[in-house]
C-alpha cells in the first residue's frame, strides 16, 4: 500500500550550483502531521516548495493519494500553503482573502459566505471579515492565513515556518492553538520549521534534515531519545559530547571508557571494541552532587548559573567541559564557582556515535 503523500528520490539543484535537496524520500500517512526540521539551508523549504509546485525538482516524483503531483501546475495541486509572513493580499479584506480560493473555484453566494464564516469561526476570527489584514495583529494574520488555506478543505496542508515572524511568547501560545486546530480538522500536513519546540509540539513525526537529506525520521520521542546521528543529537535539544573508546560491545550497547570511568551507552551504529566514539550526554542527565557522593565522577564547577526554574552548571571534568542543567528546588543551595563536586550521569540516556 502506498503512502498518502509520497516523495521519491527528490533532488533539486539551483542555477548557482547549490544542491538544495539531495535525494529525499518521505512517506506521510493520511491525517498525519510531519515536520521537516533543520537549520537554514538544509533543504526543508525547497522540499516544501517542490510539493507546492513553486520549484521544479530536477529528479524524483511527488505523489498525493496515489496520483502524481509534480506534473501539475502549482494552481492545480490540492495542497494549500500557509506562507512564512502569511502573504495575505493587502488589497482585500479578511473575508475576501479567505474567499479567494473559493471564488477562483466559482463558489459564490450563500455557499461562499457560509464556508468563509465557518472557517473564520474555526480560527476564532468571527466578526473580523471586514478588516484589512494590515489592521490585524501578527497572531491574527497568521490565523487568517490558516483560514485561507483551510477553507478549501485541501488534501494536504503545507506550512512554511508560519510562526517565525512572531515574538517568542506569542509563538509559544500559537503553537499550542495551532496543534489543537490541526488535530481537530485532521488534515494531513507537512510543516517546515527550524524551531525544534514547534516541531515537537505539532508533529506526529519529525524528519530532521541536513544538507539536502533526511537524516532521521521518527516521532519526537525517538528523535530526542534515540538520535541516529550526532547531527540530530546536537540539533534537537542540547547535548554534551564526550570522546571515549569502546571497551566491549554487548548487544545494542557499548561499554565505553570515558571521563576516567566506564559507562554503558546505547550504540547508534554497529561498533566494535577499540572504536573511538563520541558519547552524547543530555545536560539534564547530569546531576551535580557533593564530591564525596559514592558512584560519582569528580568535577569542578567553572560557573554556576541560576535560571529561575533550573540551575545550569559549566563544569570541568577530566579536562572536558560539560554543561549540566537540572531543576532547582526553592531554597536549595547552588554550588559555588570553583567548588569540587561529584557528577551522577544517568546511564540509560547515553548514546555513542562512531567518530
Amino acid at each position, binding site marked *: 500500500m502506498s503512502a498518502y503523500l509520497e516523495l521519491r528520490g527528490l533532488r533539486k539543484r539551483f542555477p548557482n550550483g547549490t544542491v538544495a535537496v539531495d535525494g529525499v524520500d518521505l512517506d506521510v500517512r493520511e491525517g498525519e502531521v510531519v515536520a521537516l526540521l533543520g537549520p537554514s539551508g538544509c533543504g526543508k523549504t525547497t522540499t516544501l516548495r517542490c510539493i507546492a*509546485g513553486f520549484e521544479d525538482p530536477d529528479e524524483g516524483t511527488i505523489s498525493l493519494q496515489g496520483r502524481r503531483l509534480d506534473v501539475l501546475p*502549482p*494552481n492545480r495541486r490540492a495542497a494549500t500553503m500557509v506562507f512564512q509572513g502569511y502573504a495575505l*493580499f493587502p*488589497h482585500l479584506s479578511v473575508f475576501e482573502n479567505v474567499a479567494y480560493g473559493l471564488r477562483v473555484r466559482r463558489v459564490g453566494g450563500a455557499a461562499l459566505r457560509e464556508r468563509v464564516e465557518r472557517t473564520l469561526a474555526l480560527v476564532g476570527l468571527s466578526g473580523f471579515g471586514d478588516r484589512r489584514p494590515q489592521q490585524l495583529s501578527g497572531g491574527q494574520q497568521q490565523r487568517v492565513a490558516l483560514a485561507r488555506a483551510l477553507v478549501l478543505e485541501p488534501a494536504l496542508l503545507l506550512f512554511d515556518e508560519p510562526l517565525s515572524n512572531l515574538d517568542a511568547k506569542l509563538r509559544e501560545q500559537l503553537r499550542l492553538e495551532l496543534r489543537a486546530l490541526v488535530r481537530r480538522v485532521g488534515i494531513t500536513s507537512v510543516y517546515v520549521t527550524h524551531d525544534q519546540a514547534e516541531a515537537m509540539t505539532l508533529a506526529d513525526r519529525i524528519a530532521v534534515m541536513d544538507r539536502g537529506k533526511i537524516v532521521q525520521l521518527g516521532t519526537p520521542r525517538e528523535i530526542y531519545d534515540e538520535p541516529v546521528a550526532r547531527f540530530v543529537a546536537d540539533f534537537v535539544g542540547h547535548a554534551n559530547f564526550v570522546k571515549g573508546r569502546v571497551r566491549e560491545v554487548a548487544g545494542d550497547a557499548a561499554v565505553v571508557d570515558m571521563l576516567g570511568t566506564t559507562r554503558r551507552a546505547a550504540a547508534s551504529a554497529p561498533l566494535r571494541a577499540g572504536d573511538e566514539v563520541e558519547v552524547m550526554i543530555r545536560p539534564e542527565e547530569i546531576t551535580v552532587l557533593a564530591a564525596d557522593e559514592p558512584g560519582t565522577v569528580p568535577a569542578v564547577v567553572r560557573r554556576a548559573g541560576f535560571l529561575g526554574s533550573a540551575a545550569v552548571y559549566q563544569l570541568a571534568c577530566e579536562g572536558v567541559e560539560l554543561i549540566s542543567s537540572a531543576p532547582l528546588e526553592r531554597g536549595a543551595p547552588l554550588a559555588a564557582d570553583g567548588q569540587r563536586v561529584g557528577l551522577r550521569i544517568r546511564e540509560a540516556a547515553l548514546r555513542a556515535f562512531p567518530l
Partner: protein
Amino acid sequence: MLSTLRREPAAATLAVIAAAGIALVILYPFASVLQEAILHEGGLDASPVTRVIANPVTRQIVVNTLLMGVLAGLFGTILGLAFALATTRAARGPLRTLLHYAALLPLIAPPFALALSTIFLFGRNGLISKQLFGLEVSPYGLGGLLFVQTITFFPVAYLIFDALVRQMDPALEEAALNLGASRGRILRTVTLPLLRPGFAGAFLIIFVESLADLANPLLIGGDFNVLASSVYLAIIGEYDTRKAVGFAAVLLVPSLVAFFIQRLWVGEGSVVTVTGKPSTGRVAMLESWIRAGLLGVTLFTTAIVASLYLAVVAGAFTKLLGINNTLTLDNFRFVLQGIGTKAMTDTTLLSAIAAPIAGVSGLLVAWLVVRSSLRGRIAFDYLVMLGAAAPGIVLGLGLLLAFNHPPFRLTGQTAIFGGAVVFIIAFIIRTAPVSLRGNVAALMQIDPALEQASANLGAGEVTTFRRVTVPLVRRAVLSGVIFSFTRNMTTLSTVALLVTPSWRIMTSQILNEIDAQRLGSGAAYSTILIVIVLVAIVALQKLFGRTAVEVAA
C-alpha cells in the same frame, strides 16, 4: 521555451506578442535610420555620418552639442543639489513647500514656454533686461540656451537628490555631530559623499535630455547650432534625408552611451531610493551662512521660475509683451478661431488614445521582466528603454523613414486615418518606458509570495495577474497613464517631423506661430497647454494624494 510554454502559457504568449510589437515599432524604425546611415544603393556607404565629422562646419555642431550637454548637466546638477539641500537642510514649513513646488514647476512646462518667456523678459526688448535695467543683451546663443535648459532640467536632479537625502539615515549625521563635527564639516564629509550616486545619475540624465532638446535650440539657440535642431532643419528646410540621418546617427551615439551608463551604473540604485523610508524629520539644520547661501540661490531661482511662468501668461494676454503691453484677448481669439481648436482636440485625442496603451504595455513588459522565468526577458527591458534613450527627433526620423512606404505606410495625409497611427506609435514608444520603470519598481516591491499564494489557492496566471498583481500596482499603472498623457501633450521633438495637415499637434503649432513672429499667439497656445497639463496633474493628485506630482514628473 517549451517548458515555459507549459508552465507559463500566458507569459510565453505575451512574450511573443511583445517581441513582435517591439520589432515593428522600435527596432524597425531604428534599423531604418541605421540602414540609411551606412547603406546606399546596395553598397556599404557611411558617407552621411563621415561627412558630419569631416566637414568643419558640421563638426562644430557636434562640438556645440556636447558642450551644451556637459554644461547643462553640470549647472542642472548643481542647482538641483542646492534645491534638495535647501528643502531638507535649510528650510522648513511654508518656505520648504514653496521651494519644493518651484523645483517641480518647470517639469510641466511645454517646450518653448520657458524659451518664449525668456525672450519676453531678457530679449532685446526684454521687460527685465531692457526696460528695467536698460541692458542691451541678447539671449540668443549658448548663454541663453544654457539658462533655459538649466531651468528646464534641474528638477530632474532635484528629484534624484531629494530622494537620496530622504532615505539617508539621520543617525549617520547625528553620529558625526556626536563625534564633534561641525554642521559644515558633516555636509562635506558625510552628507555629500552619501549623495555621490546622485551626481552621476543627475548629470547623465540631464546630459541626455539636453542633447535631445529640440525646442530651445530652435527658438533661442541663434547661431549656436546643435545636432537635434540640425536634424529637424535638414528635413523641414532642405528635404535632405541623408543629411538628417547623418546628424541623427551622430547624435544617437552619446545619447545612448550616456543613457545606458546611467541605467547600468546608477539606475538600479535609484529604484531602491524612491521606495526608501521617508525622512523622520530629525535632521539638523545647516550652519546659518550655508543656509543663507542655499536659500539665496534657490529663492532667486524660484523668482526666475515664477516670472517665466507669469511672462508666458502675460504674453498671451497682451498685444506683444515688452513692446505693446495693451491687454487683449486677440491671441486666444486668433488661436481658437484658427487651427488652434483643431490642434487642441487632435492632440488631446491622440494623447488620450496612446496613454492607456503606453501605460498597459509598460505594465505587461514589466511583468514579463520581473515575474516570468523566460530566458532573455531582460532584453525586453532594454529594447523598450530604447524608446526613452534615443532623442525624440531621431525616433521621429526613424518613424518617418520606416513608415512612409509599404509594407507599413502610416505617415502622411494619404495613409490610414490620415497618418494618425504613427503619432500614436510615437507617443507610446516614448512614454511606455516610463510606465515600464514605474511598474518594474512597483512589482519588485510586491512579495512574490502573494502571487504564489494565489496560484496555491488555485488561480491561473491570468486570474492571479488580474486579481492580485494589477490591484497591487494600480497606482503605478495609472500614474504611467497620466504621465503618458501629459508627456504626449507637450512633446515636440518626436512628432515634429511627422505632422500633416490632417492632424495638428499643439507644440508644432507653437513652433509655427513663433516662426511667423506671432509670439503672442505662441504664448496663448502655451498657456492653454499648461492649463491642460495642470488639470491632468491635479486630477492625478486628487486621485492618489501628495506624491502625484513627483510621479508625474
